[in-house]
Structures are given as structure tokens and as C-alpha cells.
């Protein structure tokens, strides 16, 4: 019910979001999040590496969690991979629901979990060279907001040291 896609071509937001409301009159709210490459500190390009055998299943599992937690009438996750330049979209998440609160929460949940529980890695290109982006503690904190028994049993990224 939440469609997922991983692609190396540019994301077309209008095309991705249109199916959520096409031919329907029971949808009250659509929330869309789009993440873009920023030219922070002279960044010239961003490359998204991923783990192809795992990625779509990880996205589908995250999507299923959202669908289980909120009454959604539809949704879509599109994640770009490969090399892109500032201004291009990296990721698009959109969810449709009867009510705005569910749509906002589900979209924010999807982004928080995508950032911490899907096998993507960002490498930044600048004049000085290429560096891998470090995971942010703030992203872990954001993702942990949504933890419950169900969530923790499905995903446990931290090694049990």
C-alpha cells in the first residue's frame, strides 16, 4: 500500500505523488517530504551507495511499520542512488490519510527511520576530496522517538556489545 522505489534517475515528485489521490475522493491530507542535496561548505556532488539485495526489503519493512501505526490510505517512498549534484532530490516520502495528524506523523516517522534503518551511505565530494558522511546522533534520537516493542523487534541496528 506504500510503494517503494530505488532509482538512479532524477525523482519526479509530481509523478510519484499523483497516484495517492488519483481517482479518489476519500483522501483528506497528503504530506510530502523531499530531501535535497545542499551545497554546504563547497560540496560539489553527493554519491549514495546502497546494498541492493537489502534495500527494497528494508524500505518495504519501514513502509509496513508506518502502515501498521497510522491509518493511511496510501504512500510512496522513492530513494535515489548514485551520484547527484546540489539542488537534486535525494529522497521523497509522501503519505495520504483522512486526517492531517496521521499524515504528518507517518511522513516524519518514515524519514526518521529511512535515515537510520535503511542501507544507504552518503559520500560527499568537495575540492579537497571525497569524505563519507558520519551518522548523526540527532538522527538516532529522532528515530528512537518511535520505538516500541514492535519496532525494536524488527530493527536493532546497534551491536549488542
Amino acid at each position, binding site marked *: 500500500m506504500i510503494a517503494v522505489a530505488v532509482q538512479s534517475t532524477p525523482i519526479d515528485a509530481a509523478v510519484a505523488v499523483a497516484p495517492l489521490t488519483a481517482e479518489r475522493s476519500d483522501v483528506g491530507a497528503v504530506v510530502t517530504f523531499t530531501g535535497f542535496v545542499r551545497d554546504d561548505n563547497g560540496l560539489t556532488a553527493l554519491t549514495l551507495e546502497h*546494498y541492493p539485495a*537489502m534495500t527494497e526489503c*528494508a524500505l518495504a519493512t519501514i513502509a509496513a511499520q508506518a502502515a501498521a501505526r497510522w491509518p493511511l490510505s496510501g504512500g510512496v517512498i522513492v530513494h535515489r542512488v548514485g551520484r547527484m549534484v546540489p539542488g537534486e532530490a535525494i529522497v521523497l516520502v509522501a503519505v495520504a490519510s483522512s486526517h492531517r495528524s496521521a499524515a504528518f506523523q507517518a511522513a516524519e516517522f518514515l524519514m526518521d527511520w529511512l535515515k*537510520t*534503518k535503511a542501507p*544507504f*551511505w552518503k*559520500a560527499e565530494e568537495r575540492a579537497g576530496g571525497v569524505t563519507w558522511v558520519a551518522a548523526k546522533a540527532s538522527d538516532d534520537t529522532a528515530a528512537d522517538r518511535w520505538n516500541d516493542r514492535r519496532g525494536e523487534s524488527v530493527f536493532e*541496528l546497534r551491536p*549488542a556489545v
Partner: protein
Amino acid sequence: MIELLYFAWVRERIGVDGEILPLPQGIATVSSLLDWLAGRSAGHAAALADRNAIRVAVDQVFAGFDAAVAAGAEVAIFPPVTGG
């Protein structure tokens, strides 16, 4: 045999995308697998030196260091994810 896959700077430090190796006797967890791999080359040692910076998936599912590994498994080793 065990299939190993490396991503991001783990891949760069080890120098290959992955490798298929015979699984030695006595290696039954992610933790012991990482200890064994770290001894294979200077690159492996550098990649795996900071275990707090290492995450693992066994058969395409995120796994803790105490997770079981057995012959036939696909074990992916990588830094914390940074997508989205």
C-alpha cells in the same frame, strides 16, 4: 563458505566489494567472524578496528554482534547508515 559484502569506507579500506571464504571451525557469531576477518590483512584490520563504527546485516537483515553466522550466510559489513 561464507559470502562477505563491504560497503562505504569499510569497502574502501578492505579494498574489495566482497569476498567468498571458507568459514573456519569455531566461528559461529558475528563477533568472532569480525575478529577473524580483522586478522586477514592490514586493510581488514583498519576497516574493523573501531567496532563501535561497524554495523552488520546477516542475510540482508540488520544483526547484532552476538547474532549467529553459519556457512551459506551472506554477511554485509558497513558503517552506520546515512541515507534519507
